[in-house]
C-alpha cells in the first residue's frame, strides 16, 4: 500500500503547476492525464518532494517556512484529538481486558495468588488442563450442535417470515412488530418463561403433548433432551434478528427485477431461488456471520434454563467457562479464562473461514 500515497502527491503537485498555466483551457480538468504524468514521475526533489514530505510528516515535526504545513499539522492534531477517545476506549475496554484474560489463562492462579498477585507463569498448562478435561469434548460438541442447529432454523424461519412480510396486507406492520417481542424481552424473562413452559410436571408444553396422548417429556431434566430444549429457546429468541435484517435486505431488491422475472414466466418458487436468494446473498452472509458470533457465546439462556445440566448434557464452552470461574465456591480463574479464550479463537477462526468461503462464492 506504500505506492498509493507516494505516487499521489507526485502526481498532484506537477499538475497544480500546470493547472495555473493552463487554467483557462482546462478549468474543469483537475487531475492530470496519466500519460502526461508518467513521464514526470521520477522528477527530482523540488515541489514533488516537498509535498511528499509534508504529507508523510508526523504531527510533532514542524515544517520549515510555509504556512500550509502549519495548517495541516493543526489539522492532524485535530484529527488525533478526534481519534483519541476511540483509541483510548478501545485500549481501555478491549485491549486491556483481553490482555488480562490472556495473562490470567497463562498463570496458575489460586485464590491466594489472585489476592497476592504473585501467580507463577505456567505457559499453556491451563489450556492443556482444559482440553484434557473430560468436560471439554462434550462441551465443544454441544457448542457446535447448539450453534449450527440454532443458525439453520433461525435463518430459515427468519427468511420465510421476511418473505411473508414483503406482501403488504392488513395489519402486516403490526404483526411484524409483534414478531420483534422476543428480541425486546430481557433474556432472563424469556429464558425463565421457557423453563416454566418446559417443566416436566406442570409445563404447558407437556400438557399439550398429553392432550395428544404423548407421554411426558423431561425437557430440561433428561440428558437426551436438555440440549434440544435450550436450542429451541435460542431459536425462538434469534428469529426476530434474522427477520429484521433479511426483511430490510429484501426491501433493497428492486421490484422491477421480480416483475421482469415474472414476465419471463418464472414461477414463484423459481423467482425465490433464482432471483431473491442470490440477490440477498450479501445480507444473508452478514446475518449468518453475526448470528454465528452471537450464538457461539450464548450463556444466559442455557444457564437460566438448565445450568448446563443434567450432568453436563447441555454444557457449552461458554457456560463451562463461567462455571470454572464463578460457578463454584472455589473459583479457578486460570482454566476459566483459558476456556474463554478458546471460545474467542473459535469465533474468530470460524468467522474468518466463513468470510473466506463467502468471498470465494462471490467471485465464482
Amino acid at each position: 500500500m506504500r505506492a498509493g500515497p507516494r505516487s499521489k502527491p507526485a502526481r498532484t503537485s506537477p499538475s497544480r503547476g500546470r493547472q495555473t498555466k493552463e487554467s483557462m483551457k482546462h478549468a474543469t480538468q483537475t487531475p492530470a492525464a496519466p500519460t502526461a504524468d508518467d513521464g514526470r514521475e521520477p522528477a527530482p526533489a523540488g515541489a514533488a518532494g516537498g509535498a511528499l514530505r509534508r504529507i508523510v510528516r508526523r504531527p510533532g515535526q514542524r515544517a520549515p517556512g510555509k504556512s500550509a504545513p502549519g495548517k495541516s499539522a493543526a489539522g492532524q492534531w485535530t484529527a488525533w484529538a478526534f481519534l483519541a477517545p476511540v483509541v483510548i476506549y478501545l485500549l481501555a475496554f478491549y485491549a486491556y481486558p483481553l490482555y488480562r484474560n490472556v495473562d490470567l489463562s497463562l498463570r496458575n492462579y489460586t485464590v491466594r495468588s489472585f489476592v497476592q498477585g504473585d501467580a507463577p507463569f505456567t505457559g499453556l498448562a491451563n489450556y492443556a488442563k482444559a482440553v484434557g478435561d473430560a468436560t471439554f469434548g462434550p462441551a465443544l460438541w454441544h457448542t457446535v450442535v447448539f450453534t449450527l442447529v440454532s443458525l439453520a432454523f433461525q435463518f430459515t424461519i427468519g427468511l420465510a417470515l421476511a418473505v411473508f412480510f414483503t406482501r403488504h396486507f392488513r395489519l402486516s406492520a403490526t404483526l411484524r412488530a409483534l414478531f420483534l417481542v422476543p428480541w425486546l424481552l430481557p433474556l432472563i424473562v424469556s429464558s425463565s418463561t421457557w423453563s416454566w413452559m418446559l417443566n416436566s410436571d406442570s409445563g404447558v408444553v407437556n400438557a399439550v403433548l398429553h392432550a395428544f396422548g404423548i407421554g411426558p417429556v423431561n425437557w430440561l431434566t433428561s440428558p437426551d433432551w436438555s440440549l434440544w430444549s435450550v436450542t429451541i429457546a435460542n431459536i425462538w429468541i434469534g428469529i426476530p434478528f434474522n427477520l429484521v435484517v433479511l426483511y430490510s435486505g429484501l426491501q433493497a431488491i428492486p421490484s422491477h427485477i421480480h416483475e421482469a422475472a415474472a414476465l419471463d414466466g418464472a414461477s414463484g418458487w423459481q423467482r425465490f431461488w433464482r432471483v431473491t436468494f442470490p440477490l440477498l446473498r450479501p445480507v444473508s452472509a452478514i446475518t449468518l456471520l453475526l448470528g454465528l458470533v452471537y450464538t457461539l457465546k450464548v450463556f444466559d439462556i442455557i444457564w437460566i434454563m438448565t445450568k448446563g445440566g443434567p450432568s453436563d448434557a447441555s454444557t457449552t464452552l461458554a457456560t463451562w467457562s463461567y462455571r470454572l470461574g464463578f460457578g463454584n465456591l472455589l473459583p479457578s480463574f486460570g482454566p476459566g479464562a483459558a476456556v474463554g479464550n478458546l471460545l474467542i479463537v473459535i469465533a474468530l477462526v470460524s468467522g474468518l473461514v466463513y468470510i473466506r468461503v463467502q468471498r470465494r462464492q462471490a467471485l465464482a
Partner: protein
Amino acid sequence: MESLDRGRRATGLGLAALALAGGLTACSGSSGGGDGDTASAGASQAAAGGGTYTIWDPYPQFDDSSDWVKLLTQCGTQAGVTVKRTGYDTTDLTNKALLAAQQGNSPDVLIVDNPVVSTLAEAGVLTSTDETKIDTSAVSPNLLAAGQIGGKTYGIPIGANTLALYYNKEVLKKAGVEADGIKDWASLTAALEKVKAAGKKGITFSAIGTEEGSFQFLPWFWGSGANLTKLDSPQGVAALSLWADWVKKGYAPNSVINNTQTTSWQEFATGDFAFGENGTWQLANAKKAGFDYGIIPIPAKDGGTAPAPTGGEFVTIPAQKDAARYATTQKLVTCLASTDNSLNTTTTLSYIAPTEAVQAKQVEQNPELKVWVEAVKAAKGRTSDNLGTKYPKISEPMWKAMQAALSGSQPPQEALTAAQGTAASATQ
C-alpha cells in the same frame, strides 16, 4: 450527505469521550473512596470522633430503614465511629471480597456465607480471631467449625440455619400417615408410597447442579454415615440410591433435577406435596401457604436426626494495612455478636442463634423454633473436618453424580465412583 455523516461520527466520538471521562472519574472516585470518604465523613462526624468503618453483608433485601441496618448504625455509634454499609448479592460477594483484597481496599467487616470463610482465609484475606481478640467461646463448636482451618478461627457466626422436612398435615392425614412415626429412611419411604397411592405427590427437594444441590443432598449423605472424603462408599451409594429410587418410582417429581430451593418450595406451596426439604428461611412463607404444616428433622438412615449442613454467615475481619483499625472493628463485631443484639439479628434474619443462651431465649419466645434448634445442634459445617478449601472440589463432582443418577444416565454406584475419581485427583 458525507459531511452530515461526519458530523454524526464526531458527535459519537464526543459522546464516547464523555462516557470515558465519566467512567474514569467514577473509578477514581470509588478507588480513592477509602481515604477520601474517611476524611470527609470524619470531618462531618467530628463529634463522634473515630472516622468511617465499612461493612459488607449479603443481605441486599434490607434497606436503611430495616432493623439490621439500624443495628449496624447503633453498634457504630457505640464504638464512636460512622458505619458505611453495603449489601451485596451473596453469590457476588466472594468475588467482590477477593477483588477488594487484591486492590488493597477490603471492608473493615465482611459478613460472608460460612463455606466461603475457609476460601478467603486461605487467600490470606481474613484475620484470625486470635489476632483481633474476638471472643468465640460462647459459640456452639459445631457451628464454629465451618470457620476453622489449621487450628485457627477466622470469624464468628452471626446465626445459623439448616434443613428439615416441612410436611403438609392434610395430605398426610388423607394418606393415613403419622408424621411422628417417621423415624428412619424405611418409614419415610413407606409414607411416600402411601401418599402416592392416595393420589398425592410425595416429596420435593432441590437437586440442581450447583452448590445448592449438594447442600440439600448432604443430610441424606451424612445421615447414611458416609464421609465426604469417600463419595463412593456403600453408605454414600445408599444415600444416592434412596433419592434415585424416589424419582424413579415417582415419589419425587422429575423436576427436582432442576429445582432450586426456591422452586422446590413453590412446588411444596402448591399443597399437593406431602413433604418438602427446605430451610429455616421459609418459615415466614410457610405461614402464608394457606395450609396446615408441620416440621420434622431429616431422619438418618437407621433412625435419629441426620446431620444437616449449616447455612448462615460468619462475621469476619479482613486484613487491613493499618492494624490500628482492628481495635475499633473488634468493638463493632463484639457488639453484633452480643447476646442481646444476637436475639434481634437472628429474629430479623430468620436464623437460629449460634449460642445456647440465645437459642434458649428464641425457643422461649417462639416454641415453633424448637425443632430447628435441635436440627442446628445436630448440623455440621460443609468445610468442617478440616476439609476447608477441599470441600468445593468434592462438592462439584458430588452434584454431578447426583444429577447423573437422578436423570438415569448412570446408576448411583457408577456415578459416585466416577465422582470419587475426580474429587480425589482434584484434592491431592
